[in-house]
C-alpha cells in the first residue's frame, strides 16, 4: 500500500458488498453459459488479394500466416464440425491463392495444399488440390518444386494416375533449375516411365543424363548405371 492510499477499512461496507456481488454475478453468469459450440460452416468466399493486402496494413507476412491459421481452423480438429473433405475445394483453392499472393515466399499454403488438403480420401478433391499446386508451381518453380514433387508421388501412389504423375514429374525436372533438388526429384520421371512400362523411354532418359555429364556424384553415377543395366536386362527379357 503506498502512502497515497487510505487503509482498506476506509472503504464503506456497501461498496465491499457491491464489488463482491458484482464479481459473483459475473462468474455465475459465465459459468451458466454453455461452452462455445462448434459450428458446421463452410469456408466463406475469400477476399480479393487486394483487399487482403489492405487489411494487412503493411504486414503481409504476418497477415498471410494468420490467414493460414484461420483457414486451418475449418476442420474437425479445429473449431468446425466440418471435415476437410467436406469443404468447398474451389473456394479453398481461392483462399490459398490469395494468401500465397500476400506472401509469395511462404511455403505454408502449398504445404497445406499438398500435404493436408490433397490427402483427403476424395479423388475429385485431391485432383483439384494437385492442380492448384501445379498452377502455383509454375509461378515460382525454383522455390515450389518440393510440393509438386509430392503431388507427383500422390498422383502415382494414391490416385494411381501415372500420366498425371508423369506430367508433374516432367514439370519438376524441366521447369525448375533449383540446385537443391535431390536425385529422386530430378529423376522421378524415370521411375514413373518404368512403372508405365515405357522401358525404352526410361532407358534413353538415363543414357542422356549420363552423357550430359551434369551428374558428378559417384554414388549417383553408380546408381544410374545399375538402373540402366537393369532396364536393358528387362528389355532383353521382354524381347
Amino acid at each position, binding site marked *: 500500500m503506498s502512502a497515497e492510499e487510505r487503509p482498506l477499512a476506509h472503504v464503506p461496507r456497501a461498496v465491499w458488498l457491491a464489488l463482491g456481488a458484482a464479481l459473483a454475478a459475473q462468474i455465475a453468469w459465465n459459468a451458466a453459459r454453455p461452452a462455445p459450440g462448434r459450428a458446421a460452416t463452410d469456408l466463406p468466399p475469400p477476399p480479393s488479394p487486394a483487399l487482403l493486402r*489492405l487489411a494487412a496494413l*503493411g504486414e503481409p*507476412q504476418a497477415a498471410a*500466416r494468420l490467414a493460414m491459421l484461420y483457414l486451418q481452423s475449418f476442420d474437425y480438429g479445429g473449431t468446425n464440425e466440418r471435415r476437410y473433405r467436406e469443404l468447398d475445394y474451389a473456394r479453398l483453392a481461392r483462399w490459398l491463392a490469395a494468401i500465397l499472393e500476400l506472401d509469395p515466399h511462404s*511455403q*505454408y499454403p502449398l*504445404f*497445406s495444399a499438398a500435404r493436408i488438403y490433397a490427402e483427403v480420401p476424395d479423388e475429385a478433391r485431391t485432383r483439384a488440390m494437385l492442380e492448384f499446386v501445379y498452377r502455383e508451381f509454375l509461378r515460382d518453380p525454383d522455390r515450389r518444386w518440393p510440393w509438386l514433387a509430392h503431388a507427383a508421388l500422390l498422383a502415382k501412389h494414391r490416385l494411381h494416375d501415372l500420366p498425371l504423375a508423369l506430367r508433374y514429374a516432367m514439370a519438376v525436372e524441366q521447369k525448375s533449375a533449383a540446385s537443391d533438388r535431390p536425385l529422386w526429384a530430378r529423376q522421378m520421371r524415370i521411375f514413373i516411365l518404368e512403372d508405365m512400362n515405357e522401358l525404352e523411354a526410361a532407358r534413353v532418359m538415363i543414357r542422356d543424363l549420363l552423357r550430359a555429364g551434369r551428374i558428378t556424384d559417384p554414388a549417383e553415377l553408380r546408381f544410374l548405371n545399375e538402373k540402366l543395366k537393369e532396364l536393358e536386362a528387362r528389355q532383353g527379357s521382354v524381347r
Partner: protein
Amino acid sequence: MPAATLARFVVLEAWRGGLPWLAAGSIVLAGALAAFLSQVALTESRELELALAAATLRACAVFLVAVQVASSTLRELNDKGLELMLSLPLGRSTHYLGRLAGFVACGALLAVAFCAPLALWAAPGALALWSASLAFECAVVAAATLFFSISLGQLVPAIAASAGFYLLARSMAAIQAIAGGPLADASFASQAARGLASAFALLLPRLDGVTRTEWLLYGVPGYGAAAAAIGALALYAALLGAAGLFDFHRKSL
C-alpha cells in the same frame, strides 16, 4: 545546450512514468502471442513466431510513442507548465525541437529494446536494419503526434488524428492499387477517387515500405533501397517538425 536539456527531461519523464515497464509488457505480450499461435501452426512455426512477434512489437512501439507524446504534451498544456516554460528566456523553436528530440530518443530506445527478443530468430544484419527503420518510424509518429497534440489541444482528438494518419500511411499503397486496379471503371467518380488517392499518397510517408517483416524472414533484398526508404522517413519527420514549429510559433500561449 537548452534543447538537449529539455530532451533529457522528456526521456527522464518517460522513464519514470513507466514506459520501460510498458515496453517489457509489450515484449512479453508479443512473445506469448507468437509462441501460442506457433503451437497450432503445421509448418513454418519459426517464421510464424518471428512474423507475429515483429508485427506486434512494431504496433506496440508506435502505440507507446504516440500515447507518451500525446499524454505528456497535453499534461504540460493543461497544467500550464508549457506557459511557465515559455516564460523562460528560451525561444519557441528550442522548446519545440527539444521536446521533439526527447520523444524521438524515446522511440529509438524502444526500437533497440524491441529488436533484442527478435535476435532469437532473425539474422543480425536484417535485424539491425529493421530496428533502425522502426526508430525512424517512431520518429515520424512522435513528430505527427506532437503536431496534432499542440494543434488540437485535446487527448482523444490528438490520438485519433495520429492513429488515422498512421493507418492511412500504412495502407496507402494498397488503396492506390485498388483504386488503379483492372476493375476500376473510367467514370468521373472513379477517376476522382484515383486522383484523390494519388494526392494523399504524395502527402503521406510510405510506411508500407519500411520496417518490413519480410527483411527478417527472407533477408533484405537491397540495402540501398531499404536505406532510401528509411531516408524518406527522416525527411518526412523533418517536414512534420517544420509544420509543428510553424503552428507552435503562431499559437497564442
